[in-house]
């Protein structure tokens, strides 16, 4: 016994003497200028960044950014850590804890970073033509005017958009075709070769042809899929907040651009539902025009979009035929598993095929493990025998078919340089940010990740999967709304505004902060549902007015 303990202690001592801490991701090359890039890789991966770094290092291999040093070494800093998410980063970016200098991050409330003086002024660098890289345009000339206006604060630009985000539904187009789940022009089911209906955009010959045009058609489709012994809808219970973002997106489609913008700008006339006029069974209500200012911004909770979107949520969640509750509501069912079932099930005979999956625009990139599990250890998304597409969201009513589709950019993702960067690093940092926005690098980003950036740049479509192509078509045909505003109220608490955010704050009496609408809607008291769409709507209207708005008094005045 004594010997054993002596042995254990000796071994522990020996190990501590040898030392075996963390392994550095890269070895520093002292003779080069170092630039550290912080990024939250989420589902987007790091491959694009590695390719960007390789190209940048190659371009400047003989250039001297600092005296006595030649070339540059770019290191990916704190990736894959919650610290890189804007909500956390804002508190620590100025501290010595954060060594990163250039950032590509999500969840960052731009104006708050600027107001705290945390971001470096990149106006000049972004306005200068990229002649050094063989282009005539500047980075800002590739951006939309709206985005540029909203990002410009006191005439200065401190960040550029990172990528176009979005949550939505992905469908297995191969299964849709095989099982004739498309709608034809007469509202009957057909395969892809049939006379497809116009889809929600009401236009023939577009990417959404044959898809359900209205909520009713959508639920009829789910019934049909269920009858064909497939799982109609799937999401990961562990990431239930995706559902809130989907509902927000559906609400936006009902509201239209002007009314959606009111949620950020609080300045204009909103079409609101008259109190006490909603017939929830027939989904009818009376509307009124109300002038919205920051003082009465809580009234926006009465926007018709929320009514329709909540009714959609209730119809979906309170019918367990449409989804497997043990997947969609279980915290143990994670994104990886959801993607595995979506990708793998059609290749095996024992499990039900999943027709539609709730995920983000990045899903194909993130599902690499699922493709490998299904198609072999070296497989990628290009090896899939199934074709996946982004689903245009159905409209709330027949009358709304053909109305504009909105893509609300909700991930608050930006690229920027921190303000306390060492002076000798400014040049390399700005050049890196410029280089990342050259046409070649923007195209490389999209071709590598399948994700788009909100800039104008050419993309070789041959390198895109069917899914990416359909997503491009979706973005091209939608109006982008950025969660940015010059309104002081919005800037004071950007995390509080927009439908998806309301659904993540309090709206039901015994709801916990981390409980999201998908789980609240299925809560039961015995065999009865505890809440329906009406309860949640009333809860949101009440909560926004009675509890929330008082907290903004210092801003509203």
């Amino acid at each position, binding site marked *: 016994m004594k010997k054993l303990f002596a042995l254990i202690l000796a071994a522990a001592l020996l190990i*501590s003497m040898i030392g075996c801490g963390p392994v*550095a*991701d890269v070895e*520093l090359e002292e003779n080069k200028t170092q630039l550290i890039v912080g990024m939250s890789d989420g589902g987007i991966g790091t491959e694009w960044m590695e390719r960007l770094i390789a190209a940048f290092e190659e371009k400047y291999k003989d250039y001297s950014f600092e005296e006595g040093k030649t070339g540059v070494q770019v290191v990916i800093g704190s990736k894959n850590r919650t610290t890189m998410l804007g909500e956390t980063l804002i508190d620590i970016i100025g501290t010595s804890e954060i060594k990163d200098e250039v950032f590509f991050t999500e969840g960052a409330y731009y104006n708050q970073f600027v107001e705290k003086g945390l971001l470096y002024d990149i106006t000049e660098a972004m306005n200068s033509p990229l002649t050094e890289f063989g282009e005539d345009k500047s980075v800002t000339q590739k951006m939309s005017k709206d985005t540029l206006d909203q990002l410009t604060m006191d005439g200065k630009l401190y960040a550029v958009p990172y990528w176009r985000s979005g949550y939505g539904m992905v469908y297995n187009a191969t299964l849709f075709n095989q099982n004739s789940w498309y709608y034809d022009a007469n509202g009957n089911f057909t395969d892809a070769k049939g006379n497809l209906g116009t889809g929600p955009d009401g236009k023939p010959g577009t990417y959404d042809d044959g898809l359900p045009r209205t909520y009713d058609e959508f639920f009829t489709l789910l019934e049909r899929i269920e009858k064909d012994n497939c799982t109609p809808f799937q999401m990961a219970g562990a990431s239930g907040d995706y559902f809130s973002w989907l509902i927000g997106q559906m609400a936006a489609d009902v509201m239209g651009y002007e009314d959606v913008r009111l949620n950020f700008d609080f300045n204009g006339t909103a079409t609101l539902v008259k109190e006490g006029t909603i017939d929830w069974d027939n989904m009818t209500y009376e509307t009124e025009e109300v002038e919205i200012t920051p003082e009465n911004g809580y009234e926006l909770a009465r926007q018709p979009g929320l009514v329709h979107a909540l009714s959609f949520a209730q119809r979906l969640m309170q019918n367990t035929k449409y989804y497997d509750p043990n997947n969609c509501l279980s915290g143990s069912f994670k*994104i990886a598993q959801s993607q595995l079932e979506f990708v793998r099930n059609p290749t095996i005979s024992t499990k039900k095929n999943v027709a539609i999956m709730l995920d983000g625009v990045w899903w194909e990139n993130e599902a690499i493990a699922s493709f490998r*599990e299904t198609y072999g250890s070296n497989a990628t998304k290009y090896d899939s025998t199934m074709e996946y597409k982004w689903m245009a969201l159905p409209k709330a009513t027949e009358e709304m078919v053909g109305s504009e589709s909105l893509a609300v950019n909700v991930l608050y993702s930006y690229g920027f340089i921190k303000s306390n960067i060492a002076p000798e690093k400014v040049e390399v940092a700005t050049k890196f940010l410029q280089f990342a926005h050259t046409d070649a690098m923007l195209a490389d980003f999209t071709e590598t990740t399948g994700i788009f950036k909100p800039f104008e740049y050419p993309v070789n479509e041959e390198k895109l999967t069917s899914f990416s192509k359909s997503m491009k078509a979706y973005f091209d045909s939608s109006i982008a709304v950025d969660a940015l505003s010059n309104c002081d109220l919005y800037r004071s608490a950007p995390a509080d505004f927009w439908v998806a955010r309301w659904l993540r704050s309090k709206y039901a009496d015994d709801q916990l902060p981390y409980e999201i609408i998908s789980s609240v809607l299925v809560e039961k008291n015995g065999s009865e549902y505890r809440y329906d769409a009406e309860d949640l709507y009333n809860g949101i209207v009440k909560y926004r007015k009675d509890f929330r708005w008082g907290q903004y008094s210092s801003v509203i005045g």
Partner: protein
Amino acid sequence: MKKQRTGPRIKEPKGAKVIMVFLVIYAVCLIFPYTIAVNGAFRDWGSFVDNIFAWKDFTLENFKKIFTEFNYPVTMDNGMPGKFYFVGLLINSVLFSVGCAFASSTCPLIVGYCTARFPNAFSRFVINLVYVLMALPIVGTIASEIQMTQNLGIYNTIPGMWFLKFNFLGMYTLIYHANFKSMAKEYFEAAYMDGAGHFTIFTKIMVPMVSKTWTLAFLLSFIGFWSDYGTPLYFMPDNPTLSLALLNFNKLPGSIETMQLAAALLLAIPSLTLFVLFRKKIVGNIQTGGIKG
């Protein structure tokens, strides 16, 4: 040596059979969940997701991946990114558990000995303090503790955790104190006469007399610290142990279940091995004399 009986064995009454059946069912139910971990760790991911109970599609792939893909990202001292891989985590776990177990089982021994051997006012104060503070239910000092370790510079360091666990506020101090107090003074005095110093008496005579208790305390605390994710979570987030890394890995949205289970199995192996090797000592010692030596 004849096995010492600790309780009277009488003829089993009828009720005993019922309790036995209950206990057997309970034991089976207790063990059954772990078979999922054992099964899943050796299964193909897709096959496991299809049916967690099936006994097929076995593979060692999960264990291979543990060594390459299972990691815990940290920021290194120079601010650069780095990762703890399985071996690094394992070493941290060994250092953390052995050190903390040694500290937490040795401090009570020292204090118990000193207070019994030198029954001065301070010693009496210390022993009374242990009694009082053990009964005082203090809640929610964790924020203050974290701040204190940060101020002391022991945050994120393994030796810092050894210091943290080198405390005497616990049952063991009282047990050692009672044990040493009950020992005849002649032991010390005879040793003095033979010219032995205090340190020699302590290590050569006294410690061996309570080695059984110490070993048990060490084993139990080692197993406890090996599984403990709380201490590393609070105080060593950038210097993780295997247990914390497993918790972190499990919560990643992209983590693969069979890899989680393989890692869980690897985490459980050392505790189980120690338990199997020293089962009689662990169960027997607690059973026969409480936790007395």
